[in-house]
């Protein structure tokens, strides 16, 4: 297998080099030659394209195949097609409804709050003030932070016994008993969502700030002269201007948040009893603690179907934007 990969890399390099040699020759012979001009961009893109095609294409096909197989890593000799057994197992799993619901709550709540807070933050940052650069450098930092370390921070802060959150709430008189945040159904997912929001607000703020700064100032001046109020100004000018960015970021972010589960792995491990498990994190758990790759792949196929439906909607909406309906 190693030699196959090495061979592949070698092949790409050789093809690439040969292509350029050919081009060079042609160029010398006839600078205007159409073929060389036409081939150039493909040569530039080929290394990246082939690499991605192989690295995403093969695993995806393989996933689909495995989802119809009895494929358990602990029983290496017993790989065979079992039709829809994996899917049957999956849908008769008594936790699957809970996990679906968790995924839904997790995505909607964290994307929704990230969006709202990011929008508010960008509006507050729009006007120049002294120290804005430094302020941005600090509050945008979580974007560059590792989800793993953010997970650690939240797991430690919400620790039932030594956690600072319980201590603060008790000192403020809001609670009398320490809360086992990570051990209580519902609350454990809440902590994950809070961490996700903390991590994701900078992305929205960065995107919207850039969009806001591209709105021409004179539109606002005209509105001021006409005596336009702040609320009206937002809905009549600001929002329509940034709407394409809003749609794009919401759609993209939804997918990223849905797919990412490192926070769950670090903060709760899906617990207690799958109450903070989402579809991708459950797939991870099934694949690498039970080593049932067949079932995990079936879950993967379900994931793909959900994402494909979503992507179709996504592309429809973005095309709508590119058509310049705006």
């Amino acid at each position, binding site marked *: 297998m190693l030699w196959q990969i090495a061979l592949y890399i070698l092949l790409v390099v050789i093809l690439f080099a040969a292509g350029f040699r050919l081009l060079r020759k042609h160029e010398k012979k006839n600078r205007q030659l159409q073929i060389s001009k036409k081939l150039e961009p493909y040569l530039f893109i080929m290394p990246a394209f082939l690499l991605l095609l192989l690295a995403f294409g093969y695993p995806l096909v393989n996933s689909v195949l495995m989802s119809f197989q009895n494929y358990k890593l602990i029983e290496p000799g017993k790989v065979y097609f079992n039709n829809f057994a994996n899917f049957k197992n999956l849908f008769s799993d008594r936790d699957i409804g809970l996990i679906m619901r968790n995924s839904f709550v997790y995505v909607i709540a964290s994307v929704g709050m990230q969006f709202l807070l990011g929008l508010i933050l960008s509006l507050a940052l729009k006007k120049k003030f002294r120290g804005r650069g430094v302020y941005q450098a600090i509050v945008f930092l979580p974007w560059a932070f590792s989800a793993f370390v953010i997970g650690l921070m939240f797991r430690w802060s919400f620790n039932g016994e030594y956690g600072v959150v319980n201590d603060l709430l008790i000192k403020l008189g809001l609670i009398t008993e320490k809360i086992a945040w990570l051990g209580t159904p519902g609350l454990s997912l809440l902590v994950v969502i809070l961490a996700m929001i903390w991590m994701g607000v900078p992305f929205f703020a960065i995107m919207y700030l*850039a969009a806001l700064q591209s709105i021409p100032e004179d539109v606002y001046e005209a509105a001021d002269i006409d005596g336009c109020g702040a609320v009206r100004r937002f809905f009549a000018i600001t929002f329509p201007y940034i709407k394409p960015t809003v749609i794009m970021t919401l759609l993209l972010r939804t997918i990223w948040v849905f797919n990412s589960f490192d926070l769950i792995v670090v903060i709760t491990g899906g617990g207690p009893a799958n109450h903070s498990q989402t579809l991708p994190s459950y797939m991870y758990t099934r694949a690498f603690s039970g080593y049932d790759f067949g079932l995990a792949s079936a879950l993967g196929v379900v994931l793909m179907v959900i994402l494909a439906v979503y*992507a179709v909607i996504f592309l429809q909406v973005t095309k709508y934007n590119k058509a310049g309906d705006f």
Partner: protein
Amino acid sequence: MSSKMKRNLSTLGRVLLLAAYLLAVILPIYWMVATSLKPHTEIIDAQNLTYIPQNPTTENYEQLFSMYNYGSMVKNSVIISGSTAIVITLLSILSGYAFARYSFKGKGTILLFFLITQMIPGILVIIPLYLIFANAGLINTRFSLFIYYLVVNLPFCAITMRSFFERIPYTLEEAAYVDGCTKWQGLFKIILPIMFPGIVAVFVFAFIGSWNELIAGTIFISTSDMWTVPVGLKSLIGKYDVKWGVLMAGGVLALLPTAIMFAVMQRFVVEGLTSGAVKG
């Protein structure tokens, strides 16, 4: 209410809002740093939680290196993230240039393909890759993570690089060609120097993306001498006993390089982020 008062009020509201958000960002970070500086006995004294370390100590940081071999984790992470970022930057320059400067058959489809790879959940790719790597004897090697980080970070970087290219007026190159430059000379002598900040931004994207990743690391790497920083730190979370002081110290050190990179390159990173993701 006079308009002046109204304006003052809205300024006040804005200041309060910004202050509250700053606090929300800083407090968790502060708590991590504070914990990392406390001795173990102070950390587990649940009755008297101290908000400022009473006996600041560097023992957690020392333990991290002496007992848990943090140096080796950092070395692995730097090697993997650095090599991934270099290769991604080179490939992104090539494909970004083609996307920006040529119109060719299938360009839209290829761009769409790049975009779609960004929507595929990583875990879906990781499982089959795990089998391939296991067959090839690549489990527990840095090469396995290099390959995975390369393919998951490449599409976004290539698309971002494209928009950096698009910002440079084509007339610059044209002038160079008229003066007798070849394509390669034009690219290396004229465009790349102007684009240097953009190139560094793409490098930073790729580096941060690889440096921060946990899941593939836990799957492809199980021997401790190959652990990257997140994988190694995760192993410190035991079932019953968690060394929070050491863990927080490790977290602080893990955040430092990406935080510094981001702070230094912020303007360009932000530019890349806004143009790359929206244009798609």
